[in-house]
């Protein structure tokens, strides 16, 4: 796990954490085929924080779900590390490649019948770990997301922001090198969202994970990202890639800087006034 996050994004090409080559997705709807994502290329360097930004229906979630092996691309290849994620069309995703991924959904997707620590430890179950080990590792992760005191609570006793913290802890419990996040803070209020952004940045700086985060919030994208990948309205395609070079760790004051405003304005203009 490298600690070098503050440097510029690593060279695109070999050694990428995620490589997307010509990946597209066409759904077969009853009214005919719907192209959700045009063939897309994207390389994510190890330790890089990439944000996929776009309006709803731009295929950003589709792309992320393909990276997680939840749906398979209709064309192109995805590489996780040096392994192809899919070894042929419609095949099941590669187990090792999937094992190096953590996924945070839009909804926390916590199991209401499990206490917080058992929700966090779920990915470790059935993988040769004892209950005591799982509890210990869950406690460790809970501490990192600021939930050390809530291990034995049921999810329904937690607020939305805290539930999403549990979800983040769960996504990281098996020590993946890559974290995929699908609009993880979209359902939270603005203040909680700011807190979660700061927490996420800190986690990222501490652990050196590669993060791909999907959002439709321009400020969130610019605040978090090393690189913002702007996707256009359906059919989705990469419209622009913007490097964001504010020093880390960024605090909320960075959003008041003129250059921050310029970058937000640039992105907003390309989105055609969206948000």
């Amino acid at each position, binding site marked *: 796990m490298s600690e070098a996050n503050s440097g510029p994004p690593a060279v695109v090409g070999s050694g990428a954490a995620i490589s997307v080559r010509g990946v597209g997705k066409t759904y077969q709807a009853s009214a005919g085929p719907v192209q959700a994502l045009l063939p897309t290329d994207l390389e994510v360097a190890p330790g890089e924080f990439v944000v996929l930004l776009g309006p709803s229906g731009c295929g950003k979630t589709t792309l992320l779900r393909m990276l997680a092996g939840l749906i398979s691309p209709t064309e192109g290849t995805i590489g996780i590390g040096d392994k192809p994620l899919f070894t042929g069309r419609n095949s099941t995703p590669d187990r090792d490649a999937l094992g190096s991924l953590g996924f945070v959904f839009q909804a926390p997707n916590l199991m209401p019948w499990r206490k917080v620590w058992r929700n966090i430890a779920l990915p470790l179950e059935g993988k040769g770990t004892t209950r005591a080990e799982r509890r210990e590792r869950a406690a460790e992760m809970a501490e990192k997301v600021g939930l050390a005191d809530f291990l034995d*609570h049921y999810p329904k006793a937690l607020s939305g922001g805290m539930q999403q913290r549990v979800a983040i802890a769960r996504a990281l419990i098996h020590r993946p090198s890559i974290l995929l996040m699908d609009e993880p803070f979209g359902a939270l209020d603005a203040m909680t969202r700011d807190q*979660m952004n700061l927490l996420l940045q800190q986690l990222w700086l501490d652990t050196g994970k590669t993060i791909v985060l999907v959002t439709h919030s321009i400020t969130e994208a610019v605040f978090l990202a090393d690189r913002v990948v702007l996707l256009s309205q359906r059919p989705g395609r990469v419209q622009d890639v913007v490097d964001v070079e504010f020093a880390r760790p960024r605090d909320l004051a960075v959003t008041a800087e003129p250059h921050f405003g310029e970058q937000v304005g640039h992105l907003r203009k390309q989105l055609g006034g969206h948000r």
Partner: protein
Amino acid sequence: MASEPQAPTTRDPSGTRRETGPRWLLWVTTPLILAAFIGGWKLYTIVFDIGELILPPPEDVWFALIELLGQPMIYQATYVTFYETMVGFLIAVVFGVALGIVLGKVRSLERVLSPFLVATQVVPKVAIVPLLLLWFGFGLTSKIFMAAIISFFVMTQNTILGIRSIEPGHRDLMRVIQAPWWKRVISLDIPAALPAVLTGIELGIVFAITGAIVGEYLGGDEGLGALATVMLASLRTDQLFAVVIIMTLLGFLLYAVVAGIRRFAIPWHESSGRATSL
């Protein structure tokens, strides 16, 4: 840590706190309502001078009940009804829930079978009793089948509902963490479907006792239902009422046990606070 966690909001499981009154409320209201009911009953028999063959006054029913409880045959009859209900119910649980799981998982199969399932439900079950008597005789077997048939469908339906209501997000989660199929069954399918399945079982026990008693009414000489027909034939309306009260108590008891199991099995679930399905 970059930020402080928010204080936990302890919410009522249903989202909003509904005022249901103090804990002792039922202990006061239940006897009061019961007393009012019995008082009204007594008044009605006096004011309208109802013959005791039609509606015996409450004290007659009370004495009949005491008298019945002094005889061993009432216990024998209660046991028979209990036995039929439980065996029929357990058969229905096993087959009903199993079928529900299969149909819930395999949608195409449910589509193929659903007209037939509905058909078996629209047939008035009481009309089948003569057939059951013909096939299984006047003994306990025909009643067991009646109890099973009548309670089966509601459990299948609820199990299908439970399996269907598993959240897609949870399924995605299990795929992302590469849970093997057995892990998905144990850690997702069963706990997620359990509330609906238990609701079905809760309803099923009530149907089962109804089935057993209807079976007894229509044929055979054992059980509370048969006893009721004997009371009717000998024009002992007071004793008939007493038997109905015993049936009610038996039903209450069985329902309470099943509802208790529900609360014990899914303490996390919103419905566990109180039985709402009846």
